[in-house]
Protein backbone atom coordinates (compact mmCIF):
# COMPACT_ATOMS: atom_id res chain seq x y z
CA UNK A 1 0.00 0.00 0.00
CA UNK A 2 1.22 3.47 -0.82
CA UNK A 3 0.86 6.38 1.62
CA UNK A 4 -2.43 7.59 0.14
CA UNK A 5 -4.11 4.20 0.33
CA UNK A 6 -3.49 3.18 -3.27
CA UNK A 7 -2.35 -0.34 -3.92
CA UNK A 8 0.32 -1.51 -6.33
CA UNK A 9 -0.08 -4.57 -8.51
CA UNK A 10 1.55 -7.54 -6.85
CA UNK A 11 3.84 -9.33 -9.28
CA UNK A 12 3.91 -13.09 -8.69
CA UNK A 13 7.28 -14.17 -10.02
CA UNK A 14 7.71 -17.12 -12.35
CA UNK A 15 9.39 -19.06 -9.53
CA UNK A 16 6.40 -18.64 -7.21
CA UNK A 17 3.83 -19.44 -9.85
CA UNK A 18 5.84 -22.51 -10.91
CA UNK A 19 5.76 -23.69 -7.30
CA UNK A 20 1.98 -23.23 -7.13
CA UNK A 21 1.42 -25.10 -10.40
CA UNK A 22 3.76 -27.94 -9.34
CA UNK A 23 1.76 -28.51 -6.19
CA UNK A 24 -1.31 -29.22 -8.33
CA UNK A 25 0.29 -30.81 -11.41
CA UNK A 26 3.73 -32.20 -10.49
CA UNK A 27 4.95 -32.72 -14.07
CA UNK A 28 3.52 -29.52 -15.59
CA UNK A 29 6.45 -27.14 -15.11
CA UNK A 30 9.37 -27.38 -17.52
CA UNK A 31 11.41 -24.43 -16.38
CA UNK A 32 11.06 -21.47 -14.04
CA UNK A 33 12.75 -18.09 -14.25
CA UNK A 34 11.89 -14.94 -12.28
CA UNK A 35 10.17 -13.50 -15.40
CA UNK A 36 7.91 -16.45 -16.17
CA UNK A 37 7.26 -20.13 -15.57
CA UNK A 38 7.37 -22.45 -18.58
CA UNK A 39 4.56 -24.99 -18.67
CA UNK A 40 4.49 -28.17 -20.78
CA UNK A 41 2.06 -27.95 -23.72
CA UNK A 42 0.35 -31.17 -22.61
CA UNK A 43 -0.74 -29.66 -19.29
CA UNK A 44 -1.19 -26.04 -20.38
CA UNK A 45 -4.97 -26.11 -20.24
CA UNK A 46 -5.02 -27.76 -16.80
CA UNK A 47 -2.55 -25.23 -15.45
CA UNK A 48 -4.46 -22.31 -16.98
CA UNK A 49 -7.82 -23.33 -15.59
CA UNK A 50 -6.14 -23.76 -12.21
CA UNK A 51 -4.68 -20.24 -12.47
CA UNK A 52 -8.07 -18.83 -13.40
CA UNK A 53 -10.11 -20.61 -10.73
CA UNK A 54 -7.83 -20.85 -7.71
CA UNK A 55 -9.21 -18.51 -4.99
CA UNK A 56 -5.74 -17.17 -4.19
CA UNK A 57 -4.80 -16.52 -7.83
CA UNK A 58 -8.02 -15.68 -9.73
CA UNK A 59 -6.31 -14.76 -13.00
CA UNK A 60 -9.54 -14.09 -14.87
CA UNK A 61 -8.09 -11.53 -17.28
CA UNK A 62 -5.66 -12.48 -20.05
CA UNK A 63 -3.72 -9.25 -20.50
CA UNK A 64 -1.52 -10.21 -23.38
CA UNK A 65 -0.73 -13.25 -25.48
CA UNK A 66 2.15 -13.20 -27.89
CA UNK A 67 4.79 -15.42 -29.48
CA UNK A 68 8.57 -15.05 -29.60
CA UNK A 69 10.92 -16.70 -32.08
CA UNK A 70 13.79 -18.04 -29.96
CA UNK A 71 15.69 -19.38 -33.04
CA UNK A 72 15.73 -23.04 -31.87
CA UNK A 73 12.05 -23.05 -30.88
CA UNK A 74 9.08 -20.72 -30.45
CA UNK A 75 7.56 -19.69 -27.20
CA UNK A 76 4.10 -18.32 -26.48
CA UNK A 77 3.95 -15.84 -23.61
CA UNK A 78 0.80 -15.25 -21.53
CA UNK A 79 0.57 -12.22 -19.24
CA UNK A 80 -2.22 -12.75 -16.75
CA UNK A 81 -3.94 -10.23 -14.50
CA UNK A 82 -6.23 -10.75 -11.57
CA UNK A 83 -8.54 -7.76 -11.42
CA UNK A 84 -10.15 -8.81 -8.15
CA UNK A 85 -6.86 -9.45 -6.32
CA UNK A 86 -4.76 -6.91 -8.27
CA UNK A 87 -1.89 -9.21 -9.13
CA UNK A 88 -0.04 -10.21 -12.25
CA UNK A 89 2.05 -13.10 -13.51
CA UNK A 90 3.42 -14.54 -16.73
CA UNK A 91 3.63 -18.09 -18.05
CA UNK A 92 5.18 -19.48 -21.21
CA UNK A 93 4.89 -22.52 -23.44
CA UNK A 94 7.71 -23.77 -25.65
CA UNK A 95 7.23 -25.62 -28.91
CA UNK A 96 9.45 -28.52 -29.86
CA UNK A 97 11.61 -27.30 -32.71
CA UNK A 98 10.70 -24.90 -35.49
CA UNK A 99 8.82 -27.31 -37.74
CA UNK A 100 5.04 -27.29 -37.44
CA UNK A 101 4.77 -25.49 -34.06
CA UNK A 102 1.58 -26.49 -32.26
CA UNK A 103 0.28 -25.21 -28.92
CA UNK A 104 -3.13 -25.85 -27.32
CA UNK A 105 -5.49 -22.90 -27.59
CA UNK A 106 -6.56 -21.20 -24.36
CA UNK A 107 -9.77 -19.79 -25.87
CA UNK A 108 -11.94 -22.22 -23.83
CA UNK A 109 -10.47 -20.66 -20.67
CA UNK A 110 -10.10 -17.03 -21.76
CA UNK A 111 -12.27 -16.10 -24.78
CA UNK A 112 -10.13 -12.94 -24.95
CA UNK A 113 -7.37 -15.07 -26.47
CA UNK A 114 -9.36 -15.42 -29.70
CA UNK A 115 -7.99 -12.47 -31.68
CA UNK A 116 -4.57 -12.59 -30.01
CA UNK A 117 -4.04 -16.22 -31.01
CA UNK A 118 -5.15 -15.41 -34.54
CA UNK A 119 -2.52 -12.67 -34.61
CA UNK A 120 0.21 -15.03 -33.37
CA UNK A 121 -0.85 -17.57 -36.02
CA UNK A 122 -0.90 -14.93 -38.74
CA UNK A 123 2.50 -13.40 -38.05
CA UNK A 124 4.46 -16.21 -36.36
CA UNK A 125 2.80 -19.31 -37.81
CA UNK A 126 1.96 -21.01 -34.54
CA UNK A 127 -1.02 -23.36 -34.81
CA UNK A 128 -3.31 -23.13 -31.80
CA UNK A 129 -5.02 -26.52 -31.54
CA UNK A 130 -8.67 -26.13 -30.59
CA UNK A 131 -9.06 -22.51 -31.66
CA UNK A 132 -12.60 -22.01 -33.02
CA UNK A 133 -11.67 -19.82 -35.98
CA UNK A 134 -7.95 -19.94 -36.76
CA UNK A 135 -7.55 -17.80 -39.89
CA UNK A 136 -5.13 -15.12 -40.99
CA UNK A 137 -6.14 -11.77 -39.53
CA UNK A 138 -3.92 -8.99 -40.93
CA UNK A 139 -2.47 -10.68 -44.00
CA UNK A 140 -4.51 -12.20 -46.77
CA UNK A 141 -5.21 -15.90 -47.13
CA UNK A 142 -2.50 -17.45 -49.27
CA UNK A 143 0.24 -15.10 -48.08
CA UNK A 144 3.50 -17.01 -48.23
CA UNK A 145 5.48 -17.18 -45.00
CA UNK A 146 5.27 -16.00 -41.41
CA UNK A 147 6.70 -12.48 -41.26
CA UNK A 148 7.67 -12.20 -37.61
CA UNK A 149 9.90 -15.27 -37.73
CA UNK A 150 13.59 -14.43 -37.63
CA UNK A 151 14.28 -16.37 -40.82
CA UNK A 152 11.71 -14.37 -42.78
CA UNK A 153 13.80 -12.25 -45.14
CA UNK A 154 13.05 -8.61 -45.57
CA UNK A 155 14.21 -6.01 -48.05
CA UNK A 156 16.06 -6.42 -51.30
CA UNK A 157 19.09 -8.64 -50.99
CA UNK A 158 17.39 -10.72 -48.30
CA UNK A 159 18.94 -9.07 -45.30
CA UNK A 160 18.71 -11.11 -42.13
CA UNK A 161 16.69 -9.13 -39.59
CA UNK A 162 18.09 -7.99 -36.29
CA UNK A 163 20.50 -5.15 -35.60
CA UNK A 164 23.82 -6.41 -34.25
CA UNK A 165 25.51 -3.06 -34.07
CA UNK A 166 24.44 0.56 -34.03
CA UNK A 167 25.20 2.35 -37.32
CA UNK A 168 28.52 4.14 -37.03
CA UNK A 169 29.57 2.18 -33.97
CA UNK A 170 33.14 1.02 -33.37
CA UNK A 171 33.79 -2.60 -34.39
CA UNK A 172 35.48 -3.23 -31.02
CA UNK A 173 33.08 -4.77 -28.53
CA UNK A 174 32.13 -2.38 -25.74
CA UNK A 175 30.36 -4.81 -23.46
CA UNK A 176 26.88 -6.20 -23.92
CA UNK A 177 26.63 -8.36 -26.98
CA UNK A 178 29.35 -6.89 -29.17
Amino acid at each position, binding site marked *: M*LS*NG*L*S*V*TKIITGLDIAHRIEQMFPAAVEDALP*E*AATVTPAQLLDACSFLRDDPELKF*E*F*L*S*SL*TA*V*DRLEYFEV*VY*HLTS*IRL*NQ*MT*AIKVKTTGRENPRVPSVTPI*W*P*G*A*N*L*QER*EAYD*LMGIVFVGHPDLRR*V*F*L*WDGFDGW*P*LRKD*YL*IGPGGRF*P*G*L*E*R*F*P*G*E*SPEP*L*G*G*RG
Partner: protein
Amino acid sequence: MTVRAEPFVVNLGPQHPSTHGVFRLRLTLDGERIIDADMVMGYLHRSMEKLAEERTYTQNIPFTDRTDYLAAMTGNLAYVIAVEQLCGIEPPERAQWLRTIMCELQRIASHCMAVGIFANDCGAWQTPVMHMLRDREKVLDLFEMACGARLTLNYMRIGGVSRDVPPEFMPAARKLIKELPKKLNEYEDLLLENEIIVERSRGIGVLTPEQAMANSVSGPMLRASGVAWDIRKADPYAAYDKVDFDIAVGVHGDVYDRFVVRLAEMRQSVKILEQTLDLIPDGPVHAQLPTATVQPIDQPVAPLAIRPPVGEAYGRIESPRGELGFYLVSDGSPAPFRFHIRSPSYINLTPLKLMSVGGTVADAIVILGSVDIIVGEVDR
Protein backbone atom coordinates in the same frame (compact mmCIF):
# COMPACT_ATOMS: atom_id res chain seq x y z
CA MET B 1 -45.78 -16.35 -37.59
CA THR B 2 -42.23 -15.19 -38.18
CA VAL B 3 -41.05 -14.82 -41.71
CA ARG B 4 -37.46 -15.89 -42.32
CA ALA B 5 -35.62 -14.33 -45.19
CA GLU B 6 -32.64 -15.71 -47.08
CA PRO B 7 -29.36 -14.80 -45.23
CA PHE B 8 -27.93 -11.70 -46.79
CA VAL B 9 -24.35 -10.40 -46.52
CA VAL B 10 -23.63 -6.69 -46.08
CA ASN B 11 -20.12 -5.31 -46.16
CA LEU B 12 -19.77 -2.42 -43.75
CA GLY B 13 -16.59 -0.77 -44.91
CA PRO B 14 -13.69 -0.71 -45.62
CA GLN B 15 -14.59 2.75 -46.88
CA HIS B 16 -17.45 3.79 -44.66
CA PRO B 17 -17.48 6.74 -42.27
CA SER B 18 -18.83 4.68 -39.39
CA THR B 19 -15.94 2.22 -39.42
CA HIS B 20 -13.52 4.94 -38.21
CA GLY B 21 -10.82 4.15 -40.72
CA VAL B 22 -10.24 1.26 -43.06
CA PHE B 23 -11.94 -1.52 -41.15
CA ARG B 24 -14.44 -3.91 -42.68
CA LEU B 25 -17.30 -5.62 -40.94
CA ARG B 26 -19.04 -8.42 -42.84
CA LEU B 27 -22.54 -8.72 -41.48
CA THR B 28 -24.75 -11.69 -42.31
CA LEU B 29 -28.36 -10.60 -41.98
CA ASP B 30 -31.68 -12.33 -41.63
CA GLY B 31 -33.95 -9.47 -42.63
CA GLU B 32 -32.72 -6.61 -40.44
CA ARG B 33 -31.31 -8.89 -37.71
CA ILE B 34 -27.60 -9.70 -37.57
CA ILE B 35 -26.93 -13.43 -37.43
CA ASP B 36 -23.15 -13.31 -37.93
CA ALA B 37 -20.47 -10.63 -37.80
CA ASP B 38 -17.00 -11.17 -39.17
CA MET B 39 -14.19 -8.63 -38.88
CA VAL B 40 -11.78 -8.14 -41.78
CA MET B 41 -8.68 -6.23 -40.73
CA GLY B 42 -5.21 -5.52 -41.99
CA TYR B 43 -5.81 -2.70 -44.46
CA LEU B 44 -3.50 -0.52 -42.36
CA HIS B 45 -1.04 -3.24 -41.35
CA ARG B 46 2.46 -1.74 -41.52
CA SER B 47 4.28 -4.56 -39.74
CA MET B 48 5.61 -2.27 -37.02
CA GLU B 49 6.69 -5.17 -34.84
CA LYS B 50 9.00 -6.46 -37.56
CA LEU B 51 10.33 -3.01 -38.43
CA ALA B 52 11.07 -2.30 -34.77
CA GLU B 53 13.39 -5.32 -34.58
CA GLU B 54 15.68 -3.54 -37.04
CA ARG B 55 15.85 -0.23 -35.18
CA THR B 56 17.36 0.92 -31.92
CA TYR B 57 15.26 1.46 -28.83
CA THR B 58 15.28 5.25 -29.30
CA GLN B 59 14.45 5.03 -32.99
CA ASN B 60 11.35 3.03 -32.13
CA ILE B 61 9.67 5.85 -30.17
CA PRO B 62 8.17 7.50 -33.31
CA PHE B 63 6.46 4.20 -34.22
CA THR B 64 4.47 4.42 -31.03
CA ASP B 65 3.01 7.77 -32.20
CA ARG B 66 1.67 6.09 -35.27
CA THR B 67 -0.16 3.19 -33.70
CA ASP B 68 -2.82 5.09 -31.78
CA TYR B 69 -2.49 8.38 -33.62
CA LEU B 70 -5.20 10.10 -31.58
CA ALA B 71 -3.31 9.37 -28.36
CA ALA B 72 0.36 9.56 -29.27
CA MET B 73 1.46 10.62 -25.78
CA THR B 74 0.13 7.47 -24.15
CA GLY B 75 1.68 5.32 -26.86
CA ASN B 76 5.04 6.98 -26.25
CA LEU B 77 4.73 6.57 -22.51
CA ALA B 78 3.82 2.88 -22.53
CA TYR B 79 6.84 2.10 -24.69
CA VAL B 80 9.36 4.14 -22.70
CA ILE B 81 8.02 2.65 -19.45
CA ALA B 82 8.70 -0.83 -20.84
CA VAL B 83 12.26 0.15 -21.85
CA GLU B 84 12.85 1.78 -18.46
CA GLN B 85 11.74 -1.45 -16.76
CA LEU B 86 14.14 -3.37 -18.94
CA CYS B 87 17.09 -1.07 -18.11
CA GLY B 88 16.13 -0.15 -14.54
CA ILE B 89 16.01 3.60 -15.21
CA GLU B 90 14.08 5.90 -12.88
CA PRO B 91 13.04 9.21 -14.52
CA PRO B 92 13.32 12.41 -12.43
CA GLU B 93 10.34 13.80 -10.55
CA ARG B 94 9.51 16.68 -12.89
CA ALA B 95 9.50 14.33 -15.89
CA GLN B 96 7.01 12.08 -14.11
CA TRP B 97 4.68 15.03 -13.52
CA LEU B 98 5.05 16.27 -17.10
CA ARG B 99 4.16 12.77 -18.30
CA THR B 100 1.03 12.84 -16.16
CA ILE B 101 0.01 16.27 -17.50
CA MET B 102 0.56 15.25 -21.11
CA CYS B 103 -1.28 11.94 -20.75
CA GLU B 104 -4.31 13.59 -19.19
CA LEU B 105 -4.40 16.32 -21.85
CA GLN B 106 -4.18 13.51 -24.39
CA ARG B 107 -7.04 11.65 -22.73
CA ILE B 108 -9.23 14.76 -23.02
CA ALA B 109 -8.29 15.21 -26.68
CA SER B 110 -8.89 11.54 -27.45
CA HIS B 111 -12.21 11.32 -25.60
CA CYS B 112 -13.34 14.51 -27.38
CA MET B 113 -12.97 12.63 -30.64
CA ALA B 114 -14.49 9.44 -29.24
CA VAL B 115 -17.59 11.18 -27.91
CA GLY B 116 -17.97 13.49 -30.90
CA ILE B 117 -17.65 10.73 -33.47
CA PHE B 118 -19.97 8.54 -31.44
CA ALA B 119 -22.61 11.28 -31.61
CA ASN B 120 -21.96 11.34 -35.34
CA ASP B 121 -22.64 7.60 -35.52
CA CYS B 122 -25.88 8.10 -33.63
CA GLY B 123 -27.10 10.56 -36.23
CA ALA B 124 -26.14 13.91 -34.71
CA TRP B 125 -24.36 14.68 -37.94
CA GLN B 126 -21.24 16.86 -37.48
CA THR B 127 -22.51 19.46 -34.96
CA PRO B 128 -21.30 17.79 -31.73
CA VAL B 129 -18.06 16.63 -33.31
CA MET B 130 -17.29 20.17 -34.45
CA HIS B 131 -17.72 21.43 -30.87
CA MET B 132 -15.47 18.65 -29.64
CA LEU B 133 -12.86 19.34 -32.30
CA ARG B 134 -12.77 22.97 -31.21
CA ASP B 135 -11.67 21.90 -27.72
CA ARG B 136 -9.32 19.24 -28.99
CA GLU B 137 -7.55 21.91 -31.03
CA LYS B 138 -6.79 23.83 -27.85
CA VAL B 139 -5.14 20.76 -26.35
CA LEU B 140 -3.16 20.28 -29.55
CA ASP B 141 -2.02 23.91 -29.28
CA LEU B 142 -0.53 23.04 -25.89
CA PHE B 143 1.24 20.02 -27.40
CA GLU B 144 2.62 22.23 -30.13
CA MET B 145 4.04 24.54 -27.47
CA ALA B 146 5.64 21.63 -25.62
CA CYS B 147 7.13 19.63 -28.50
CA GLY B 148 6.45 21.37 -31.80
CA ALA B 149 4.05 18.73 -33.14
CA ARG B 150 0.30 18.36 -32.93
CA LEU B 151 -0.42 14.75 -33.84
CA THR B 152 2.68 12.55 -33.93
CA LEU B 153 4.32 14.02 -30.88
CA ASN B 154 7.41 11.92 -30.09
CA TYR B 155 7.70 13.74 -26.75
CA MET B 156 8.61 11.00 -24.26
CA ARG B 157 12.18 9.78 -24.04
CA ILE B 158 13.75 6.80 -22.34
CA GLY B 159 14.50 8.28 -18.91
CA GLY B 160 12.29 11.37 -19.12
CA VAL B 161 10.79 13.69 -21.70
CA SER B 162 12.44 15.34 -24.69
CA ARG B 163 12.45 18.86 -23.21
CA ASP B 164 10.91 20.96 -20.50
CA VAL B 165 7.76 22.90 -21.34
CA PRO B 166 8.24 26.60 -22.25
CA PRO B 167 7.25 29.26 -19.68
CA GLU B 168 4.03 30.14 -21.51
CA PHE B 169 2.78 26.53 -21.30
CA MET B 170 1.57 26.56 -17.69
CA PRO B 171 -0.57 29.74 -17.96
CA ALA B 172 -2.10 28.46 -21.20
CA ALA B 173 -2.84 25.08 -19.60
CA ARG B 174 -4.43 26.77 -16.59
CA LYS B 175 -6.63 28.85 -18.89
CA LEU B 176 -7.78 25.73 -20.73
CA ILE B 177 -8.47 23.86 -17.50
CA LYS B 178 -10.61 26.75 -16.32
CA GLU B 179 -12.63 26.77 -19.53
CA LEU B 180 -13.10 23.02 -19.92
CA PRO B 181 -15.66 22.34 -17.14
CA LYS B 182 -18.02 24.87 -18.77
CA LYS B 183 -17.61 23.10 -22.08
CA LEU B 184 -18.21 19.73 -20.45
CA ASN B 185 -21.42 21.05 -18.90
CA GLU B 186 -22.45 22.18 -22.35
CA TYR B 187 -21.80 18.71 -23.84
CA GLU B 188 -23.64 16.98 -21.06
CA ASP B 189 -26.65 19.28 -21.51
CA LEU B 190 -26.52 18.71 -25.23
CA LEU B 191 -25.96 14.96 -25.37
CA LEU B 192 -26.73 13.07 -22.16
CA GLU B 193 -30.50 13.43 -22.35
CA ASN B 194 -30.64 13.66 -26.12
CA GLU B 195 -33.47 11.41 -27.14
CA ILE B 196 -31.84 10.11 -30.31
CA ILE B 197 -28.65 9.12 -28.49
CA VAL B 198 -30.54 7.53 -25.60
CA GLU B 199 -32.89 5.61 -27.87
CA ARG B 200 -30.14 4.33 -30.10
CA SER B 201 -27.67 3.36 -27.40
CA ARG B 202 -29.43 2.30 -24.22
CA GLY B 203 -29.57 -1.46 -23.75
CA ILE B 204 -27.55 -2.08 -26.93
CA GLY B 205 -24.34 -4.13 -27.04
CA VAL B 206 -24.51 -5.17 -23.40
CA LEU B 207 -21.47 -6.86 -21.81
CA THR B 208 -21.78 -8.25 -18.31
CA PRO B 209 -18.76 -7.76 -16.02
CA GLU B 210 -17.89 -11.47 -16.37
CA GLN B 211 -18.11 -11.36 -20.16
CA ALA B 212 -16.03 -8.18 -20.29
CA MET B 213 -13.24 -9.63 -18.13
CA ALA B 214 -13.22 -13.01 -19.89
CA ASN B 215 -12.96 -11.27 -23.27
CA SER B 216 -9.95 -9.20 -22.12
CA VAL B 217 -11.88 -5.97 -22.65
CA SER B 218 -10.18 -3.00 -20.98
CA GLY B 219 -10.51 0.74 -20.55
CA PRO B 220 -13.83 2.63 -20.64
CA MET B 221 -15.56 -0.47 -22.06
CA LEU B 222 -14.61 -2.56 -19.03
CA ARG B 223 -15.52 0.23 -16.61
CA ALA B 224 -18.88 0.75 -18.31
CA SER B 225 -19.65 -2.88 -17.41
CA GLY B 226 -19.22 -2.00 -13.75
CA VAL B 227 -15.65 -3.20 -13.16
CA ALA B 228 -13.71 -0.46 -11.37
CA TRP B 229 -10.36 -1.32 -12.96
CA ASP B 230 -8.04 1.48 -13.93
CA ILE B 231 -4.28 0.91 -14.15
CA ARG B 232 -3.74 4.51 -13.05
CA LYS B 233 -5.17 3.46 -9.68
CA ALA B 234 -4.37 -0.25 -9.59
CA ASP B 235 -0.72 0.03 -10.58
CA PRO B 236 0.21 3.74 -10.58
CA TYR B 237 2.87 4.90 -13.01
CA ALA B 238 4.23 8.44 -13.64
CA ALA B 239 2.77 10.64 -10.86
CA TYR B 240 -0.70 9.10 -10.61
CA ASP B 241 -0.01 7.90 -7.08
CA LYS B 242 0.21 11.56 -5.94
CA VAL B 243 -3.04 12.86 -7.39
CA ASP B 244 -6.61 12.34 -6.29
CA PHE B 245 -9.30 11.25 -8.75
CA ASP B 246 -12.19 8.82 -9.05
CA ILE B 247 -12.71 5.94 -11.42
CA ALA B 248 -15.76 6.53 -13.61
CA VAL B 249 -17.83 3.34 -13.56
CA GLY B 250 -20.96 2.42 -15.52
CA VAL B 251 -23.79 0.13 -14.45
CA HIS B 252 -25.39 -1.56 -17.43
CA GLY B 253 -22.41 -2.24 -19.68
CA ASP B 254 -24.28 -0.97 -22.71
CA VAL B 255 -23.27 1.50 -25.40
CA TYR B 256 -24.82 4.42 -23.53
CA ASP B 257 -22.80 3.71 -20.39
CA ARG B 258 -19.57 3.62 -22.38
CA PHE B 259 -20.40 7.06 -23.70
CA VAL B 260 -21.25 8.35 -20.20
CA VAL B 261 -18.03 6.86 -18.77
CA ARG B 262 -15.97 8.70 -21.39
CA LEU B 263 -17.66 12.02 -20.58
CA ALA B 264 -17.10 11.42 -16.85
CA GLU B 265 -13.45 10.54 -17.45
CA MET B 266 -12.88 13.89 -19.13
CA ARG B 267 -14.07 15.57 -15.95
CA GLN B 268 -11.69 13.41 -13.88
CA SER B 269 -8.85 14.35 -16.23
CA VAL B 270 -9.59 18.01 -15.57
CA LYS B 271 -9.48 17.25 -11.84
CA ILE B 272 -6.07 15.56 -12.20
CA LEU B 273 -4.75 18.43 -14.30
CA GLU B 274 -5.84 21.02 -11.72
CA GLN B 275 -3.72 19.22 -9.14
CA THR B 276 -0.71 18.54 -11.32
CA LEU B 277 -0.38 22.14 -12.47
CA ASP B 278 -0.12 23.23 -8.82
CA LEU B 279 2.05 20.41 -7.54
CA ILE B 280 4.63 20.01 -10.31
CA PRO B 281 8.15 20.44 -8.88
CA ASP B 282 11.12 22.08 -10.60
CA GLY B 283 14.14 20.09 -11.64
CA PRO B 284 15.66 18.15 -14.51
CA VAL B 285 13.39 16.42 -17.01
CA HIS B 286 15.76 13.70 -18.15
CA ALA B 287 17.55 11.07 -16.13
CA GLN B 288 21.25 10.42 -16.56
CA LEU B 289 21.18 7.03 -18.22
CA PRO B 290 23.36 4.48 -16.44
CA THR B 291 26.66 3.90 -18.21
CA ALA B 292 26.17 0.15 -18.14
CA THR B 293 23.31 0.44 -20.61
CA VAL B 294 24.62 3.34 -22.71
CA GLN B 295 27.85 2.79 -24.56
CA PRO B 296 29.76 5.83 -25.81
CA ILE B 297 30.37 5.70 -29.52
CA ASP B 298 33.63 6.81 -31.06
CA GLN B 299 31.95 8.85 -33.78
CA PRO B 300 30.67 12.06 -32.19
CA VAL B 301 27.81 12.49 -34.67
CA ALA B 302 26.22 9.13 -33.90
CA PRO B 303 23.70 9.17 -31.04
CA LEU B 304 24.10 6.94 -28.02
CA ALA B 305 22.75 3.45 -28.39
CA ILE B 306 20.92 2.03 -25.41
CA ARG B 307 21.72 -1.62 -24.82
CA PRO B 308 19.41 -3.04 -22.17
CA PRO B 309 20.65 -6.14 -20.36
CA VAL B 310 19.39 -9.52 -21.58
CA GLY B 311 15.84 -10.00 -20.34
CA GLU B 312 12.23 -9.11 -20.96
CA ALA B 313 9.70 -6.60 -19.70
CA TYR B 314 5.98 -5.94 -19.99
CA GLY B 315 5.13 -2.27 -19.46
CA ARG B 316 1.49 -1.24 -19.37
CA ILE B 317 -0.48 1.94 -18.86
CA GLU B 318 -4.10 3.05 -19.06
CA SER B 319 -4.44 4.63 -22.48
CA PRO B 320 -7.72 6.38 -23.41
CA ARG B 321 -8.79 3.07 -24.96
CA GLY B 322 -7.66 0.63 -22.30
CA GLU B 323 -4.64 -1.36 -21.26
CA LEU B 324 -1.82 -0.46 -23.62
CA GLY B 325 1.13 -2.79 -23.07
CA PHE B 326 4.52 -3.27 -24.64
CA TYR B 327 6.26 -6.61 -24.34
CA LEU B 328 9.97 -6.26 -25.08
CA VAL B 329 12.62 -8.96 -25.22
CA SER B 330 16.25 -7.85 -25.18
CA ASP B 331 19.23 -9.94 -26.23
CA GLY B 332 21.72 -7.23 -25.24
CA SER B 333 21.95 -5.71 -28.72
CA PRO B 334 20.89 -2.11 -29.52
CA ALA B 335 17.64 -3.31 -31.14
CA PRO B 336 14.81 -5.19 -29.43
CA PHE B 337 14.78 -8.93 -30.11
CA ARG B 338 10.97 -8.90 -29.89
CA PHE B 339 8.70 -5.87 -29.80
CA HIS B 340 5.03 -6.63 -29.21
CA ILE B 341 2.23 -4.11 -28.78
CA ARG B 342 -0.76 -5.23 -26.72
CA SER B 343 -3.16 -2.79 -28.30
CA PRO B 344 -6.48 -2.12 -26.57
CA SER B 345 -8.33 -1.20 -29.78
CA TYR B 346 -7.59 -4.63 -31.27
CA ILE B 347 -8.38 -6.69 -28.20
CA ASN B 348 -11.53 -4.70 -27.36
CA LEU B 349 -12.93 -5.91 -30.70
CA THR B 350 -12.91 -9.53 -29.45
CA PRO B 351 -16.53 -9.49 -28.18
CA LEU B 352 -17.87 -7.52 -31.19
CA LYS B 353 -19.70 -10.57 -32.54
CA LEU B 354 -21.10 -11.34 -29.11
CA MET B 355 -22.42 -7.79 -28.81
CA SER B 356 -23.86 -7.38 -32.28
CA VAL B 357 -25.52 -10.74 -33.06
CA GLY B 358 -29.27 -10.39 -32.57
CA GLY B 359 -29.25 -6.64 -33.10
CA THR B 360 -29.95 -4.60 -36.18
CA VAL B 361 -27.53 -3.01 -38.66
CA ALA B 362 -28.10 0.36 -37.00
CA ASP B 363 -27.05 -1.20 -33.66
CA ALA B 364 -23.83 -2.57 -35.19
CA ILE B 365 -22.81 0.97 -36.11
CA VAL B 366 -23.24 2.40 -32.62
CA ILE B 367 -21.62 -0.69 -31.06
CA LEU B 368 -18.55 -0.26 -33.23
CA GLY B 369 -18.57 3.45 -32.38
CA SER B 370 -18.68 2.66 -28.66
CA VAL B 371 -15.59 0.43 -28.89
CA ASP B 372 -13.72 3.54 -30.12
CA ILE B 373 -11.22 1.77 -32.33
CA ILE B 374 -8.25 3.45 -33.94
CA VAL B 375 -7.43 1.38 -36.99
CA GLY B 376 -3.75 2.35 -36.81
CA GLU B 377 -3.66 0.58 -33.48
CA VAL B 378 -5.83 -2.36 -34.54
CA ASP B 379 -3.61 -3.24 -37.50
CA ARG B 380 -0.28 -1.76 -36.40
